[in-house]
């Protein structure tokens, strides 16, 4: 039963989105908070990530957007005195913090009970050596391995077991720093990197069992020792590729009942031995030729896999784990789906679920695409189908790529020999190579031998390919069309393959039916508003809707029309959790206003795909055909496209053409902003300056254009997500290389060339009802223009903008909003150069900064925007119009990168976005907010002698001088590369000269921790041979901070000063920060 002593509970979030730790923990955290609220427990929430829904003030009673550090949490605990702490829902970050708090004696001192799984159990699961001991004790097999703390030990062990060897660092996210070494050289590199990245300097080296089946079990246990399996999952990619980077299917497809139960029993034995109270994930390797299995890993917490399992089954793992943490047992918790039975049961599926990771390689085309034990995907999509083929095909459509199907991804150009050879490459494209090989007629057994992918999966993909061939060689008739639709071939694909027409297809009059995800395969009556599409089966959505409306009526709620909210698909660089925040809020507001909200999304990690959010959820690809089918089914009043990022915006025009009502800002206005010429004209008419520029569709045009614009120029393709492919170029050669690449990627849209203004970058978000606009605040970027706004540090409220310019910004925003008749949200980016304001970008949709601005100003932006879209005046919300008064707080947003997961990608800041997440530093004073931002961002501050390597390009040297002087004055020991050294010498700043090309020596310094950070501004070009690039890359490998913009470095020095002065920091809730200037107690 519920632990009645718990009145106040602290929940730790997972911090910024990084590869390996994404939106799944926002979903888990929100579920946790809701479960606590149901129990009337006061919630203190701490998370440094402002883009999350969990940091909304309505989710928790007290929301601290503060750094996730031991010091900070200690202070908050001291102040709030919670009775309990829940750390198993905030990923590895929260779990590690709980261990730190325990070790530091904080939990004991303030009598905070760690809820759920206890510290000892966490350590047993996390510490490789303890885990090994436990597994030996309960006789569960693990691969031959040894935990080592030095390279020498590792080397010795490698001689015993031979290569290949897997290296797994202890306590790291998503296996950061791990890998498979096939030879001594790789071993050296990975072991060193791993030791460095492990917070306890420990790695596990183990004999590789690559090629085994990889199977995962999601298990829940309560204090009563009841254990249930929510779901098992089979990785289509066998052991060797991180599960986060694997194609995954749920439930397992190739295991006999015997094997399924053998692993289930093992998972339960383990969770019992660990005494887990809550959710847990157990990963197994299973030989495909015997019953031999190994336990690979145990995560004593909810994870990405549990989010996937929750969405795959409909079982809310995080919510139940929370109830268990506060004392409930599974058989005491009502099943929220059947409402009659209890949470103690195992879901059973009558469909198949396929997950495909979303990798950032479309963005980082030069990045290392090889997949191994280190996760590289930023997000994932999930698809549900009644058969494996249907689910798989739907999953591929969910990837939002330019490709229509499995084939014609460039591999058709390879001859059979090349293709077979390339099939050995374990990268993100392997499944598609496999599909091509099947198309070319390669033998299934041969492909199984090469890829180790189970024959069953290969046979299934072959069925898809065979159908594709059938479509290619037959003319379309109704039967063939039905066959293709059952496998979820897209109409467009079918038309292309069969040379038929839209009219022909329409004449068949076939539409999808929607089925319910109900956890029980229809055994019991269930009321989950959670649907997926299938063909030629009975439809359950209409029936459901009728029933739902009836129930609403009985409750006295008269529901208005339906409105569809388009989600943002998988998390990727440039389109992250912030759009899930917006989608969820949009749905909330619709419900509040009495509408029926319908959510569509394909991302299993997020809160938007929790079936509790909207009135009805469709788990479907963000693809026009799927979306339009849903619209035909739901017959909504209209569609909201401005909250789902570029994904949703890109669907707007297609929907409009199909006659679907787009609510809010019109298509014409959306297009006007995206269309160069129209937009230019619009600004000209309004008398607003913008950098000169033009759109080109050929190389010749490009060369002609720069004659007028002069170098440097900013080049980018039109219609982009997160500035993909955006770059500053300085000469013809760079320009032409760029243009060639860009057209290769997408030739549908022209390339844009703009004058590059290196000024102060400013941005604002606004809400408009078509008449008035409300600007919650203005943000100023720390880095000068040329760095993508998503990668810039930014300050709210702006600190360095004159009143005069502020007025101009507001005026411009108002003019633009009126001219475009913006209804809803809008984001504008400006450059101020030589006291002149230029508009560089207008986004007629919710932007990345909406969650932050909502929180720091207290204005519920999305909610007001939705109301405005629905025809309400923004004046009635009590925030006035125009620029809202400045808040009493100062916040600094800091971008967070996932370099340690991605190899061969230049960490230099550029116009192209590279960060995966963000943190927010908040305080009443700018400098302290800045310091907090760096702390939250994981930057190290130390009183020990700080050695800094400085290497600047010529362009940056003079502008860097003030920063360099401060660097010296603040007592840093400066090492500099040749040119920079000379420049420093000329300016009277002492430094030690380092030869840039002596990379080995530098590497050794970094390895030995003799470098605190580097300041290195890139020379142009993406040449990976470039020494600067190598220095930056090595620095990221060893986890050494590197500043590639002199402005970020200067900001760090400012923060360092705060640290150096031993300033005691205060921590407050966002509500209090905003409200008042409270007294500083510990000055």
């Amino acid at each position, binding site marked *: 039963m519920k632990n009645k002593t718990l009145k106040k509970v602290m929940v730790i979030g997972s911090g910024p989105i990084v590869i390996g730790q994404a939106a799944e923990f926002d979903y888990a955290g929100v579920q946790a908070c809701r479960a606590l609220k149901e129990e009337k427990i006061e919630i203190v929430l701490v998370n440094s990530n402002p883009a999350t829904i969990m940091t909304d003030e309505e989710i928790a009673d007290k929301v601290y957007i503060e750094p996730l550090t031991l010091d900070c949490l200690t202070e908050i605990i001291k102040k709030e005195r919670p009775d309990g702490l829940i750390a198993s829902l905030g990923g590895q970050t929260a779990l590690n913090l709980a261990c730190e708090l325990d070790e530091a004696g904080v939990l004991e001192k303030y009598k905070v009970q760690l809820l759920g799984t206890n510290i000892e159990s966490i350590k047993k699961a996390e510490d490789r050596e303890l885990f090994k001991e436990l597994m030996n004790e309960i006789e569960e097999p693990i691969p031959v391995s040894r935990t080592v703390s030095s390279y020498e030990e590792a080397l010795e062990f490698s001689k015993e077991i031979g290569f290949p060897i897997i290296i797994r660092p202890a306590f790291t996210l998503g296996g950061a720093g791990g890998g498979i070494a096939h030879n001594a050289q790789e071993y050296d590199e990975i072991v060193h990197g791993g030791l460095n990245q492990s917070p306890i300097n420990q790695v596990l080296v183990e004999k590789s069992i690559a090629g085994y089946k990889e199977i995962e079990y999601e298990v829940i246990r309560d204090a009563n020792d009841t254990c249930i399996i929510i779901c098992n999952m089979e990785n289509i990619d066998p052991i060797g590729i991180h599960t986060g980077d694997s194609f995954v299917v749920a439930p397992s497809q190739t295991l006999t009942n015997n094997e399924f139960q053998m692993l289930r029993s093992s998972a339960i034995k383990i969770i019992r031995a660990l005494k887990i109270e809550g959710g847990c994930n157990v990963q197994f390797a299973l030989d495909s030729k015997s019953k031999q299995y190994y336990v690979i890993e145990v995560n004593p917490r909810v994870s990405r896999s549990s989010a996937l399992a929750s969405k795959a089954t409909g079982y809310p793992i995080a919510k139940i784990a929370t109830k268990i943490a506060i004392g409930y047992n599974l058989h005491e918790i009502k099943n929220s789906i059947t409402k009659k039975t209890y949470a103690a049961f195992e879901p*059973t599926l009558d469909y198949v679920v396929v997950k495909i990771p979303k990798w950032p390689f479309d963005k980082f085309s030069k990045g290392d695409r090889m997949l191994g034990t280190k996760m590289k995907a930023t997000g994932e999509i999930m698809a549900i189908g009644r058969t494996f083929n249907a689910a798989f095909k739907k999953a591929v459509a969910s990837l939002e790529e330019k490709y229509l199907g499995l084939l014609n991804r460039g591999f058709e150009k390879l001859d059979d020999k090349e293709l077979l050879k390339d099939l050995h490459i374990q990268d993100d494209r392997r499944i598609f190579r496999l599909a091509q090989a099947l198309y070319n007629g390669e033998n299934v057994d041969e492909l199984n031998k090469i890829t180790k992918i189970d024959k069953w999966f290969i046979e299934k993909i072959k069925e898809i390919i065979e159908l594709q061939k059938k479509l290619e060689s037959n003319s379309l008739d109704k039967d063939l069309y039905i066959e293709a639709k059952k496998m979820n071939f897209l109409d467009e694909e079918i038309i292309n393959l069969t040379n038929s027409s839209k009219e022909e297809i329409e004449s068949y009059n076939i539409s999808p039916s929607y089925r319910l995800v109900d956890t029980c395969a229809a055994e019991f009556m269930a009321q989950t508003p959670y649907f997926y599409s299938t063909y030629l089966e009975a439809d359950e959505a209409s029936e459901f809707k009728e029933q739902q409306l009836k129930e609403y009526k009985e409750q006295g709620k008269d529901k208005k029309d339906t409105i569809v909210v388009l989600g943002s698909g998988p998390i990727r660089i440039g389109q992250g959790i912030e759009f899930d925040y917006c989608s969820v809020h949009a749905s909330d507001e619709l419900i509040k206003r009495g509408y029926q909200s319908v959510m569509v999304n394909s991302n299993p990690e997020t809160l938007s795909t929790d079936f509790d959010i909207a009135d009805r959820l469709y788990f479907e690809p963000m693809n026009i055909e799927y979306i339009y089918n849903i619209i035909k089914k739901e017959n909504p009043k209209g569609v909201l496209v401005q909250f789902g990022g570029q994904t949703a915006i890109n669907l707007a025009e297609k929907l409009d053409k199909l006659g679907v009502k787009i609510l809010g800002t019109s298509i014409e206005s959306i297009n006007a902003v995206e269309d160069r010429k129209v937009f230019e004209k619009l600004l000209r008419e309004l008398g607003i300056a913008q950098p000169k520029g033009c759109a080109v569709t050929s190389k010749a045009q490009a060369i002609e254009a720069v004659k007028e614009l002069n170098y440097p120029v900013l080049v980018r393709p039109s219609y982009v997500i997160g500035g993909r492919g955006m770059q500053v170029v300085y000469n013809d050669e760079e320009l032409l290389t760029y243009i060639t690449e860009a057209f290769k990627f997408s030739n549908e849209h022209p390339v844009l060339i703009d004058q590059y203004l290196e000024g102060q970058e400013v941005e604002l978000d606004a809400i408009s009802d078509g008449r008035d606009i409300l600007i919650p605040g203005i943000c100023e970027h720390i880095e000068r223009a040329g760095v993508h706004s998503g990668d810039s540090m930014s300050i709210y409220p702006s600190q360095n903008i004159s009143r005069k310019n502020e007025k101009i910004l507001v005026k411009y925003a108002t003019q633009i909003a009126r001219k475009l008749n913006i209804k809803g949200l809008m984001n504008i980016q400006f450059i101020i150069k030589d006291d002149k304001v230029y508009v560089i970008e207008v986004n007629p949709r919710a932007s990345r900064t909406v969650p932050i601005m909502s929180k720091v100003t207290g204005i519920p932006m999305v909610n007001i925007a939705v109301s405005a879209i629905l025809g309400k005046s923004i004046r009635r919300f009590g925030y006035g119009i125009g620029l809202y008064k400045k808040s009493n707080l100062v916040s600094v947003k800091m971008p967070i990168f996932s370099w340690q997961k991605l190899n061969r990608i230049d960490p230099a800041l550029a116009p192209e976005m590279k960060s995966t997440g963000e943190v927010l530093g908040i305080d009443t004073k700018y400098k302290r907010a800045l310091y907090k931002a760096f702390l939250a961002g994981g930057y190290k501050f130390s009183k020990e002698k700080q050695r800094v390597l400085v290497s600047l390009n010529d362009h940056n040297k003079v502008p860097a001088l003030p920063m360099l002087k401060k660097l010296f004055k603040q007592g840093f020991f400066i090492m500099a590369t040749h040119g920079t050294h000379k420049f420093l010498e000329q300016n009277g700043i002492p430094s030690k000269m380092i030869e840039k090309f002596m990379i080995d020596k530098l590497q050794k310094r970094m390895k030995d921790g003799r470098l605190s950070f580097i300041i290195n501004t890139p020379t142009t070009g993406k040449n990976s041979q470039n020494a600067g690039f190598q220095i930056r890359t090595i620095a990221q490998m060893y986890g050494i901070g590197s500043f590639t913009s002199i402005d970020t470095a200067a900001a760090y020095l400012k923060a360092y000063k705060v640290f150096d002065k031993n300033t005691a920091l205060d921590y407050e809730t966002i509500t209090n920060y905003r409200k008042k200037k409270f007294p500083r107690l510990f000055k």
Partner: protein
Amino acid sequence: MDIGTIILQDGTVIKGKSYGSKSAKIGEIVFNTSMTGYQEILTDPSYASQIIVMTYPEIGNYGINNFDFESDRPALFGFVAKNRCKTGKESHYQSSKSIEKYLEENDIVAIYDVDTRSLVKKIRKYGTMNAYIAGYDMSENEIEAKLDELQNYQSKKDIILDVCPKETYQFNKEGDINLAFIDYGAKKGILNSLAQRGCKITVYRADIEADKLVDKGYDAIFLSNGPGNPADYTFQIEQIKKLSGTIPIFGICLGYQLLALALGSDTYKLKYGHRGANHPVINLENNKVMITSQNHGYAVDETKLTNIMRATYKNLNDNTLEGFEATRLKIYAVQFHPEANPGPNDASVIFDEWINIMKANKNKQDKQVKNEK
């Protein structure tokens, strides 16, 4: 591709694609929610004369092997799923043949490409129904003719005699415990579970008379699972009545139901039964929950338990009785399947408990005998 036909008692006609036998059968249509274990389900004799609908859509993926049979041959009448794995596409190192081939060899009518979810919802709504399954495309007239037959159909009342062994045999020749096992259509899993725990087992036919089991030196009697309505088996109930109190008796599934009837309790038909591998069962003594494998269409009426009987387990989903004991008579029984196959092994501890009871009782008896001497 051949068309197959399913006709339900309520008049619903479903067409799908046919494989396996091309014949036609009439039986009760039920559904099973296990996601793995189609081979165990196909060969579970308790399904005798039933048509099974699998809720999980992909069936046959790992073929049929020589290790996971629950009996020598399938006793069910029909098998329905959303999809089936075509011969040659199954994948498992133990697989010896495809599901298509297996069903064909055993003359089982099988149909796929059916909207099984809708079919299941129908069964849920109307309850278990009679159904006709044909491995061919039935004409309207044929269908019409079959509808009447469906209304009046009743399954054979002595179906256990079809699935029980032909004669008495030894399953495990050595063991600490000497067990008489009455096979009403037993799953091999039960025999294996007992043998592994040191039982010497003599397996008897379902129509064995009580006096044939007396004074044979048995330490206990075990009543197996099996098909059909327990109330129909009056002969078996009579035998159990004679035996109860004279020797410890244990029962699973049908064995459990027969024990309840023998002790004066009652059974009733569930609307659509429990068939699957995910049924939560709570131990009423210590509140521990197990996930169990189940396959039964009848339940023991908890309100009709007699004074000597005590409820031991209940189903958490629908609160139906799942186990009882009559300790005074040394009778212990459960409705669910501790031998799993298919399904979770959570409940295998029940065999351990029972073996301990058998052993304790045996020791006591031995001591008594010694003392008497």
